[in-house]
């Protein structure tokens, strides 16, 4: 395959950190409801959006992920009562820090998606995939291997 072809065939890789208690169920619901969403996403289940730390996100970019979505319960709905409030603080900072070092804002996003929001999951994932597709592959923070 030529370089040109490879570029033409490129598909974005999106990593979704999904909270076990809400977004993961939301993704499940989307599936059960036969809501089509792009196959570009890889869903990684975490016990709480608060479990996702900066290392995970940077590592994803290092290893070739083009966009990261972290999705958890709406504020007030955390299974562990307050986990997502902490998450929110952390991500507000982290998002700004990553943008500050040149990561495009679209490439690291966070959303609250509950277990009943199958359509929202579909919608968000579609949106992000299209945004990332328009931007092309991520080269930033990538390791050389």
């Amino acid at each position, binding site marked *: 395959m030529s370089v040109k072809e490879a570029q033409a065939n490129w598909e974005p890789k999106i990593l979704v950190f999904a909270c076990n208690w809400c977004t993961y169920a939301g993704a499940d619901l989307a599936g059960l409801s036969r809501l089509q969403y792009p196959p570009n996403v890889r869903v990684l289940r975490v016990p709480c959006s608060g479990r996702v*730390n*900066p*290392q995970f996100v*940077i*590592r994803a970019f*290092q290893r070739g992920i083009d966009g990261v979505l972290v999705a958890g319960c709406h*504020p*007030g709905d955390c299974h562990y009562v*307050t986990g997502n*409030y*902490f998450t*929110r*603080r*952390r*991500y*507000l*900072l*982290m*998002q*700004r*820090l*990553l*943008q*500050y*070092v*040149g*990561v*495009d*804002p679209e490439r690291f*996003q*966070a*959303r*609250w998606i509950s277990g009943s929001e199958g359509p929202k999951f579909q919608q968000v994932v579609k949106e992000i995939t299209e945004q990332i597709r328009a931007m092309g592959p991520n080269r*930033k*923070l*990538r*390791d*050389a291997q």
Partner: protein
Amino acid sequence: MSDKVKKMQEIAREILEKGEAKVVIGWEKGTHWYLSPPAFIDKPEEVERLVWDDFCHNNLSKYLKDYVNHEGKVAIFVKGCDSRAFNRLLQDKQIERDKVILIGIPCHGLKDQDKAKELGENADIPKAKKCVECRYPNPLVYDYFIGEEKALDEVAAASEARDFSDVEAIETLSPDEKYEFWNKQYERCLRCYACRNVCPACSCRECIFDQTRVGWIGKANNASENQFFALTRAMHVAGLCIECGECERVCPMNIPIMLLNKKLIKDINLLFGPYDAGVDVDGKLPLGHFDKNDPEEFM
């Protein structure tokens, strides 16, 4: 010898003679006139080594971590930034207040070592970069105090001078320009971990970057891994950084590390209200609590 130095030595001698502490940590003259590295004084007759001048850069509070299991007390000299570092360690329960004797010394702002080396002893040497924006020249906590507190209006003037223009200059760049800038900085990082080891906010018993066998960070040195280190560390010290600027001073590769820390400080202030680490020992850490009314951007 200045009165301050005399007083320093007097207090140190008294502490050691009375046996109040087994060791006094201060500064002494180093290899060159523009170096005043840390000094550890065990005996009253050694107090003459102690100095206080324009180059007492090292933040001594970090050494208290070495004395956690030490019997008896440790006495240390603290500038404004050292005292904030002390408060931070105290806040994290890394040290015990009553095991430390603090000798406060108001700081006039230290001078740039590299410039001193370049310009020579008789020149007018500019302030160190980290001291230009200092807002806490007076120690915030102490048992002894040397000299006079810096006048409050001077401190207030310094507070107003809070300057994020360097951070803002980067914020206005395009994403690609930003990335190019930082990538270039971290391409040359040696990962010697001097920034971490000198940092009073980095007080974990076992650092994530030392757990190479677990695979958090690759051993290879390249811009990608180095930025993994830099960004992770910046996040880890978010809300803990007391702006002593030691990380940047000790970096052998002159990486502007404080530009990362200052970005986080700026955003913490903007998003969660004014906060200065190491000022209020009983207060909550910005990332250690939350407000239900925090900005909402993730709906």
